[in-house]
């Protein structure tokens, strides 16, 4: 049975610290665009921590919500791409093939979660910052759309490692950079087709819900809301 990757986000444990954001930059060769471009709305964060205020002082609350590509089963980004740069893999991921992307940006418009980011210019790494680049992840050039991949390079590495060691892939062998770094373990990644995986167990809980589920996108990221006690 093919794997089906899923992520569970425990908003009760998420502290909004931003470790996942930096981890994602480090893992996936995401460029920093600099203040001028950031001011024009070109900052790239494949995972972002949304924060929403509720209420007014002094009865004020704040909620964090990490949002990354939801790897939807019915992904609105996929059918609109004229070149198949964005399509579905057998393991349920929304693949983005950078080499095939011509930059219509249609997928980003169709994405209700706004998790797709665009290389408006060729990215720059002031030397020797380029030495840090992860050789397992391609560096995108100008005009290409990109987004969270669930760290597909780590998924593949995990599978290869398991194969080399002639064993089945175990739950927890593979962790995307965000889940790996999360200090409070609010992100749980795993194979949803394995009923015993941590993510499957979490998903069976009735507390979990997909983001904007009513749009029919069938996301593979499940959010567990914060408990509200009186």
């Amino acid at each position, binding site marked *: 049975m093919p794997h089906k990757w899923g992520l569970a986000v425990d908003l009760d444990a998420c502290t909004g610290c931003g470790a996942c954001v930096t981890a994602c930059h480090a893992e996936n060769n995401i460029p920093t665009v*600099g*203040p001028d471009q*950031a001011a024009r709305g070109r*900052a790239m964060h494949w995972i972002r921590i949304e924060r929403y205020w*509720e209420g007014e002082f002094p009865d004020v609350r*704040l909620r964090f919500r990490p949002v990354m590509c939801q790897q939807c089963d019915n992904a609105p980004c996929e059918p609109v791409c004229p070149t198949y740069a964005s399509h579905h893999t057998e393991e349920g991921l929304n693949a983005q093939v950078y080499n095939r992307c011509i930059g219509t940006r249609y997928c980003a418009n169709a994405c209700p979660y706004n998790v797709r980011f665009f290389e408006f210019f*060729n990215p720059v790494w*002031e030397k020797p910052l380029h030495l*840090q680049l992860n050789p397992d992840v391609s560096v995108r050039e100008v005009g290409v759309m990109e987004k969270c991949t669930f760290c597909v390079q780590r998924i593949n590495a995990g599978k290869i490692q398991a194969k080399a060691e002639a064993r089945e892939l175990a739950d927890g062998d593979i962790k995307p950079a965000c889940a790996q770094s999360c200090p*409070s373990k609010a992100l749980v990644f795993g194979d949803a087709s394995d009923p015993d995986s941590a993510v499957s167990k979490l998903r069976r809980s009735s507390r979990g819900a997909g983001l904007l589920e009513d749009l029919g996108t069938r996301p593979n990221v499940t959010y567990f809301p914060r408990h509200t006690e009186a």
Partner: protein
Amino acid sequence: MDRRAFIKLSALTGSAATLAGCGSPENHVIRFVPDDEIVPGIAQWKPGICPLCQAGCGLQVRVMDADAEVVRNGQRGMMKVAAAKKLEGAASNPINRGGLCPRGQAAIQITYHPDRITHPLKRSGPRGSGAFREVSWEEALAELAGRLDALAGAGAPTLAILTRPRRNLRQTLVATFLERFGAPSPLTYELFGDDVLRRANAISFGREQMPTFDLTRSNYVIGFGADFLGTWNSPVSQSAGYGAMRSGRPGARGRFVQVEARMSQTGASADEWIPVRPGTEGVLALGLAHVIINEQHRPPEAAGTAGALIEGFAGGLADYAPDEVAQRTGVAAARIARLARDFVERRPSVAIIGGAPLAPTNGLFHALAVNALNALAGSVGQPGGLFFMPQAGAPPAGRGGLDQAAAGLLSSADPPIQLLLIDEANPVFTAPAAWKVREALEKVPYIASFACFLDETSVLADLILPDHSFLESWVDARPESGALVAVAAAAPPAMRPLHSTRAMPDVLLDLSRRLQTPFDPPLPETFDAMLSESFASLPESEAGDAWTVAQTDGAWSGDLPQADPAARPAREPVRFVEAQFDGDAAQYPFHFLPYPSQAFLDGSTAHLPWLQELPDPLTSAMWSTWVEIGSEAAARLSIREGDMVEITSSQGSVRAPAIVSPGLAPDVVAMPVGQGHETFTRYASGRGSNPIAILAPMREPDTGALAWAGTRVRVARAGAPEGRLILFAGQMRDIEARER
């Protein structure tokens, strides 16, 4: 190389070839044979230690091949090097347990920073001009050794080393060096230091150290201003505990209440957020204690010495009845009673104090009050409460008093410090302008710095001996908090140095041998020898001796016998005194609350582009400074989001764009620390403004620590938005109806 650069280069090479007729310049690029055995594409994982704060999180460094431009024997060329690619939290480390904060993730950019100092530098222009020339290590070391010899000859203890307070062997080495040289102990300064809490713990519990919170097993946590999930103490360890407290135990979920004047990132996670009048946190803690005692949940004697320190504790804290406390703190009496009942009924529970409550002039009182509350509830040393971790060899404490040292320099004609060495400290930026640290340093005849970067302090140096980055050298840590066991961490270099730099400890050891009268007996040859020696005293574990374990895993941890509490000096019982604030309330109506920013702490990581572009958790701001102002105050002053505002204290003023925040008491304005660097690499220089500059020189009287929350300010709109506030988020609030 991008397509365009390639085309340009081909055009260039083409014409060059035509002109010279001798082939393409690519053939002239020298490829050196790699120093290490590298298998391209195969990652190695090496241990490391995060250098950014005192938590001492363990790292796993992913090392892979990369093509670096290097200089060998004066020849520039390309070489395949084993380069660190990513930092991850070491899963085996009992402190961070695999996690790592955003700052720790970004620390790798220190190594690869384009503005690192790559050679020893000697000042060639006026002080502070930033004009330096490259010198050889030989020349630099000879010069510094000569200076040291001159001091030794004069027989005066006028050598000083300025550092951060650090918990590692490097600090021990610095102290040893000074001691052997006959100079006073290292001068340490940290803006957001925890001296007040350490002192309070010494008074309450006989342990002058930071506590470790066993959040994993807590059922109820009440935080007094401590940003323990963001920047305070050991945030990764505490976040791990917090995550487990919330979701790690099936059927049990710990409740968390945060008491503070400005909603911090930590406060944002609280089930209940309680704004309190700045400078009255301890009163609230004693208010809880009052209810607990008077409703006979716990007897006052349960608090032991920690309770006895508080005036009226044995008598049930008559002065802290809920109505009284409500009046002082602004928290309703019924709520106080409810919090108190929850605190005892839901035990194990723990109260955490840190950050701003410790930083007004009466900070020590608040710490003692919270200690008494914890003791009363029986939370000290109990599962789900707080512990004092046994220490695997603590470094000698430095001496504080940077303000006095600066005053001393400015007031005397013959400077009491003739030669100043600076290691990992930037007090010109992190000390209030009122202390005149810059002016004082300018009077020091000779300054040598071990800085990796030109910052406001190192730019004043006469000689810079650039240190390796933490990935290029032996590093160690002896964390005082964060795990329930003793931890001693050490890690060998993860990669070879990129530049012509040298590890500061080795330079210091080298200097000790170059002196005209070398130390006798000599210090160890190298820093790793010193490290290995220091691990010898630690017990063996199953995996081997401590030194071997530390080198392979990055940290040794284990149970050490807990030392007996230190004898507590006799003290008069303490009572609440109002905090003293600089500035008259009529003229300066707002409390000014600078706080360590999630990305930059005290500003020491502002040079890392990933952190500059990391959206702040609460405001989503990137590459910016801002002033947070409560909704009501903003409306009163006609200040709207993005407007430029001027914050004026008795010491001066700063300008910054405004963020109107719903999570801020109406008489408080808050500002993140970290930006406003004059000199700190291309990414941080000239960006934003520095709130520390306008802090009044208030002090906590017991410890002499800077009371950084003790300044009052006035706020005025200074103009329309100038586009300096760069936000990632579009809107602050969700579309209400959708969420449920």
